[in-house]
């Protein structure tokens, strides 16, 4: 949809997208750290702060700020269609589909600029995943697949014991590799910690690119089933259509939440990694010694 026959329209929509990027680049949200209730908070001595907030713990403007950050990074990656966002005058991802207890994990620098984001979303109700009345997770809608049908272990799990990992994104203007790694680790620590606290969560779902986000699951030590053979199912006009058609194969996954003991060990290793003089080497060692495994299943 991003290619329009009319060059003037294309130019106008590219300018719209460029303005939205500039807008989002400018916004800061240091007051996120001052919100009265947060689910997770770690403040580092160098000013980096990682927070976990439920949707209902956020003010509207903070929520719009996070959704705007998400949209801007996807736009920079080329995973969002500028035509679609311009025609709908979008400046952030829609908030309507968010649930009150969806979790938003965010890392901020000392100025309040969002450096990274990761979402943990659930679905309404508590039906078995195999139940035909069960609400689908967004990943299932995007890939046109019922995960309970392709991963039998999932079928007998109630849907409220499943969370979807969504939008693991870095600030694209952050080019320093070590800085990016640091943000990744901070967000994984946050995700692991909140999952550890939510005793009911047994499975994580989502979608990943093999050579990118899959590594995050390995770092967390997750036993992961990668679903192969699905086809993008979002309609062409959907603003996220490109996220499934314009990048390397994106595959749905189902991952077991490790035991509290194993997850706790993984989090301690991640904390140690932050102190390491050579974080890249430490990360490799972590993945090699305690990384997760991947099993491939056909859709």
């Amino acid at each position: 949809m991003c290619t329009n026959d009319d060059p003037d329209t294309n130019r106008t929509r590219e300018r719209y997208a460029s303005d939205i990027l500039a807008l989002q680049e400018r916004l800061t949200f240091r007051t996120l750290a001052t919100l009265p209730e947060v689910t997770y908070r770690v403040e580092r001595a160098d000013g980096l702060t990682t927070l976990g907030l439920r949707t209902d713990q956020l003010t509207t403007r903070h929520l719009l700020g996070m959704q705007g950050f998400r949209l801007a990074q996807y736009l920079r990656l080329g995973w969002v269609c500028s035509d679609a966002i311009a025609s709908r005058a979008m400046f952030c991802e829609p908030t309507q589909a968010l649930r009150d207890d969806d979790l938003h994990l965010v890392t901020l620098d000392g100025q309040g600029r969002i450096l990274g984001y990761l979402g943990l979303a659930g679905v309404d109700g508590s039906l078995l995943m195999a139940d035909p009345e069960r609400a689908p997770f967004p990943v299932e809608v995007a890939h046109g697949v019922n995960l309970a049908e392709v991963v039998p272990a999932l079928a007998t799990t109630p849907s409220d014991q499943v969370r979807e990992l969504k939008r693991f994104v870095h600030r694209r203007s952050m080019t320093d590799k070590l800085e990016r790694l640091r943000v990744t680790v901070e967000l994984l620590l946050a995700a692991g910690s909140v999952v550890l606290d939510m005793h009911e969560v047994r499975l994580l779902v989502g979608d990943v690119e093999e050579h990118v986000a899959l590594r995050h699951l390995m770092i967390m030590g997750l036993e992961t089933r990668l679903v192969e053979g699905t086809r993008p199912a979002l309609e062409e006009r959907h603003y996220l259509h490109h996220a499934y058609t314009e990048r390397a194969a994106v595959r749905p996954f189902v991952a077991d939440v490790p035991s509290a003991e194993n997850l706790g060990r993984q989090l301690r290793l991640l904390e140690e990694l932050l102190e390491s003089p050579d974080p890249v080497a430490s990360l490799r060692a972590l993945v090699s010694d305690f990384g997760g495994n991947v099993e491939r299943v056909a859709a």
Partner: protein
Amino acid sequence: MTMLQTPPVEMTAPTLYQLSPELQALRETVREFAVDVIRPRALANDQAPADHFDWDVVRAGHEIGLLRLVVPTAYGGLGLGELGVAVALEEIAAECAGTALIFGAAMLGQAPVLLSGDPQLQARFLPLFSGDDPVLACNAITEELAGCDLLIPESAEFATDVVTARREGDHYVLNGSKKFITNGRVAHYATTFANMEGEPGATGLTCFVVDLDSPGVVRGEVADKMGYRACLGTELHFTDVRVPEENVVGGEGAGFHINIAQMNMARAAVAAISTGIARGAFELAKAWCDERVQGGKRLREHQFSARKLAEMAAKVDASRMLYLRAAHLADNELPAPVYEPAVAKLFADRAAIEVTEDAMSLMGARGYVREHRMEKYLRDALGTRIYEGTPEVLALAITESLYDDEEW
């Protein structure tokens, strides 16, 4: 005998005399900000060089939402109307009218984007105000020759400084200069009114959102004003400034209607600023008259002083009633009312001058000394009479409204 029944509270509709709980809470919050943050710095900001700007006050005001009062909630704002703006500005102006105008001018710069009804324009500019760092806007109308009236065709013909626009491909090119633009020195963008080349007057007046960091924009001299010194009235010079066509507000030639609508809406808010100035001066004088003893009696017990205080109180109250009515109507009537805001501003501006003058006379020599802040109120009161309609302009608007019916 049948007793009259008191209606249950929920049956009593809110009136102008009883603000909604949300607006009462807003008033309390802004009052606290004004007393705690603005008051301690008002004198220093007033006596600083003309180009001094106190970002800390703006930042503190932004923290309580003053830069996003009228921004819809869908863009992260508070979604308030003119009534909320007016109530907030009275509170700020009671401590410092110049600071009130910083926030008021920013809202004036937001107004055309809001009035445009253009979702893309709104999405590109309104979320700017919902981040943690304060972003200011301004509204650029006034010019050297045309003053606030850009609609007189001959102005364009004779003036060299009139801002003009011409279309070049998918951009417009702006040239010319603006004057006395509040926030012009510090704003991110200016909603700028320009006449299309060859089309002077109402038909060609067009409003553009101009990024003030664009090539060709020069933020000129700051006026060294008598009052309102906390805000910066600045020249803006445009030399071949390219503005993308998407930044036209409402289309070519829509500037006249936008200008009229925002002016009618803004007058209620400016009347509220006048009310704040009058109230601030009155409160100082009231406290002084309670404290000062002359001839064995407190000043307030002297008949001449008591009479003055009573007149001042009445003027403050009447000003408030008029601006509340005007703001309420501006929020609830389309097109925006002309008569009520003009009456409110005409009355409140004059009341502010009279009340501050009386307050000064009650305080005697102390009122004439800077540290007591009274002379600042008087200087500020004289300024409010000028912008968003002088008494003469307001009189024309009011009189035209009076005779509107007869034309039918």
